[in-house]
């Protein structure tokens, strides 16, 4: 088997799977579910093969596969991974089967379409992470909007249409600006290189030579698109709505992977393509990130809806990631990458667990619950672990990411001020407040609602199968993060070198 | 006056008149009949142009099959006749006719301006040869074999589609 074709196989698996799903009968729900699960597991296995074949010491893109697509414009199907994208590919292929499994009972309406959408979504997400052609990237970036729109719009809650449209328009708005910037960039490249190109590796050499003023605009266009996706304060308001209305699986994928596409974009495009502007704007962006951290935590604290609480906590967590990226030290960027995975795992787990409750009682308000520790001890324990991971308890994954980001930003030469870290670290306090408060009101105390006694049952085997793999990684990252840090180290270094070589020297 | 010219004048005026008649008659069945007439005159024009095969196909497929289908549907639905062509939305309809006329004038101007006959020297023999069923068949089964097959599939899909759409209800 040709190694370089592996990524294409990875991409093809869910494509073929999603087409095949259409041939099932609508009534064969169980069969469709198993089929979707099997396809996503195959994708996971392929990504594992890629992981084991990956050379961790090499900072270049690997498993490159390039086929000319639109010859006249030099656009090609060009895929490849480095450590950062591979980690996120693994996260995607890891979470997709779990979310599919989690919807076994929750989705009864139009299972066929749902499975199709999920697999299609996986294609989009994988494509975003492995594209090395900026045009191809854009196509996947947009393509993944469609299934997500349907997942929220069809299987969502009461205000699903509002949420879906809001999600769509917010994201679309940013990405249109990005499209303009992409075209401009390709045209500029043609004036410089003599041929039109959208090849990312070539553009890495082009981007930094753009005149300063124009580069700021290009950076702004890319950044806005990614910042909306992240979402960075104050562009975050689509997130709570989308999360609350989306079905559990949608929330998990949304939080777990989709938001990472924004931060991934920042690392892959904003930093190396426009290093000068990135350094210039870093303090401003970091201020927004820090505001996001505190703001997200404070607003999260007073939510009455569990899903909304977790959604706002995402704003806070992603603020850490953005801060880490724009602090531009090895520690902080590595921390940011790890934190992306962490957030995917722990927030994913929290959404899954809120989903478990919702499936049984159809209530998400915190005030409805109380004292469920007595009724569902296993669930309470599991929720506790997910919560602890989210608030960054040492020994679990969240700590590693936050610690690296904070320590990196503290000594960052780009930010050059302690205040970022000091304010960001206060988010650690608030995280404990909102999570523990929620936990206390939901889990502890006397059983508040008689209904709960009839409706609530403890985690079943299927739900444990979904949650346990996530926990394994939560602990793994917390105890032995080297496995993951090593994977991204070379790539992080090379991106920062790219930035550093065009601006101040960040590596003294 | 050559026979060809006479034939052309006759057929062309029939085609023009029937087309105008078709869009102005109130009763759809009459419209359909005029359209058939139009198709026949077109077939004659094709013959004048040495396109024998196409002329025959025009008669069989268009005037025969397709128009019968139209008439059949007209009978089936038995829709009422439009009482007055300009009963409502008169401004819009006049505007529509005006636009169409304007476009015609423009196209006519362009045709005369370009006057392709000045650059093209017609070759009678080649023209006759091109119109034969043999020449067309040769093209269809060699260079255009894939579009030809696809067209076959298209017809199949259309057949099934029409059946599904026209059926009363999905079972």
């Amino acid at each position, binding site marked *: 088997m040709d190694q370089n074709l592996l990524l294409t196989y990875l991409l093809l698996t869910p494509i073929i799977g999603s087409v095949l799903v259409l041939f099932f009968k609508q009534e064969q729900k169980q069969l469709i579910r198993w089929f979707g699960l099997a396809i996503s597991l195959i994708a996971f296995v392929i990504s594992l093969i890629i992981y084991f074949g990956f050379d961790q010491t090499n900072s270049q893109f690997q498993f490159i596969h390039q086929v000319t697509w639109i010859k006249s414009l030099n656009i090609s199907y060009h895929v490849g991974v480095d450590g950062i994208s591979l980690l996120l590919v693994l996260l995607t292929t890891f979470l997709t089967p779990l979310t599919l499994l989690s919807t076994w009972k929750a989705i009864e309406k139009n299972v066929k379409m749902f499975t199709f959408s999920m697999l299609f979504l996986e294609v989009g997400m994988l494509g975003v992470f492995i594209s090395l052609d900026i045009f191809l990237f854009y196509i996947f970036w947009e393509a993944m909007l469609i299934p997500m729109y349907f997942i929220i719009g069809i299987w969502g809650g009461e205000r699903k249409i509002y949420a879906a449209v809001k999600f769509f328009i917010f994201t679309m708005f940013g990405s249109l600006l990005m499209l303009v910037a992409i075209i401009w960039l390709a045209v500029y490249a043609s004036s410089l290189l003599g041929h039109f190109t959208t090849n990312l590796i070539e553009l890495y050499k082009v981007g930094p030579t753009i005149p300063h003023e124009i580069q700021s605009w290009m950076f702004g266009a890319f950044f806005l698109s990614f910042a909306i996706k992240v979402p960075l304060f104050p562009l975050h308001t689509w997130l709570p709505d989308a999360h609350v209305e989306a079905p559990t699986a949608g929330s998990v994928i949304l939080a777990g992977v989709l938001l990472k596409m924004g931060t991934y974009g920042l690392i892959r495009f904003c930093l190396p393509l426009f290093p000068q502007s990135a350094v210039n704007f870093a303090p401003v962006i970091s201020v927004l990130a820090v505001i996001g951290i505190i703001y997200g935590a404070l607003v999260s604290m007073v939510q009455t809806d569990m899903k909304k609480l977790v959604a706002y906590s995402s704003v806070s967590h992603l603020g850490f990631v953005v801060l880490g990226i724009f602090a531009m030290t090895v520690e902080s960027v590595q921390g940011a990458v790890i934190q992306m995975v962490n957030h995917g795992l722990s927030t994913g787990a929290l959404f899954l667990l809120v989903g478990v409750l919702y499936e049984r009682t159809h209530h998400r308000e915190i005030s409805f619950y109380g004292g469920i520790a007595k009724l569902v001890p296993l669930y309470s324990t599991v929720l506790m672990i997910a919560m602890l991971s989210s608030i960054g308890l040492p020994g679990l994954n969240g700590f590693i990411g936050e610690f690296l980001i904070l320590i990196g930003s503290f000594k960052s030469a780009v930010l050059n001020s302690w205040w970022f870290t000091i304010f960001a670290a206060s988010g650690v306090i608030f995280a404990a407040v909102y999570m523990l408060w929620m936990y206390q009101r939901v889990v502890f105390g006397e059983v508040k609602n008689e209904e709960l006694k009839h409706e609530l049952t403890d985690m079943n085997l299927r739900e444990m199968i979904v949650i346990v793999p996530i926990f394994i990684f939560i602990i793994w990252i917390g105890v032995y993060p080297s496995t993951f840090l090593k994977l991204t180290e070379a790539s992080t270094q090379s991106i920062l070198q790219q930035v550093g070589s065009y601006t101040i020297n960040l590596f003294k | 006056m050559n026979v060809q010219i006479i034939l052309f004048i006759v057929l062309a005026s029939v085609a023009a008149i029937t*087309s*105008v008649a078709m869009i102005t008659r109130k009763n759809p069945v009459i419209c359909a009949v005029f359209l058939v007439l139009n*198709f026949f005159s077109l077939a004659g024009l094709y013959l004048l142009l040495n396109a024998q095969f*196409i002329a025959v196909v025009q008669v069989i497929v268009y005037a025969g099959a397709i128009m019968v289908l139209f008439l059949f549907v007209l009978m089936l639905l038995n829709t009422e006749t439009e009482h007055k062509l300009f009963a409502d939305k008169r401004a819009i309809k006049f505007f529509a006719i005006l636009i169409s006329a304007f476009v015609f004038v423009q196209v006519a101007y362009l045709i005369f301006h370009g006057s392709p006959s000045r650059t093209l020297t017609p070759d009678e023999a080649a023209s006759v040869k091109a119109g034969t069923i043999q020449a067309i068949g040769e093209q269809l089964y060699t260079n255009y074999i894939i579009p030809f097959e696809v067209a076959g599939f298209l017809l199949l899909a259309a057949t099934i589609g029409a059946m599904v759409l026209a059926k009363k209800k999905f079972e």
Partner: protein
Amino acid sequence: MSLIPMEYYLILSAFMFCVGVAGVLIRRNAIVVFMCIELMLNSANLTLVTFSSYLGNSIGQVFVFFVMTVAAAEAAVGLAIIIAIFRNKKTVNIDEINIFKW
């Protein structure tokens, strides 16, 4: 054939096309509108045949053949749609079929 300048054929074709357009624009009966479209297709066919004949090249006529195929398919499906609409709306008056509006 050579006695007649090809412009005449083209003018006839343009005339028929514009009549067809006018018909599409002013008629209300969906079936008649549909027939007008057929008229427009035929005018296009006439152009193709004219050029094919004057160039002494059969490809134009091959295209006409394809156009006819498509026209046939289109007629079948289109009429079926009209029947379906008629069944639902009890009319083929396109003034009353304004589902393009959201």
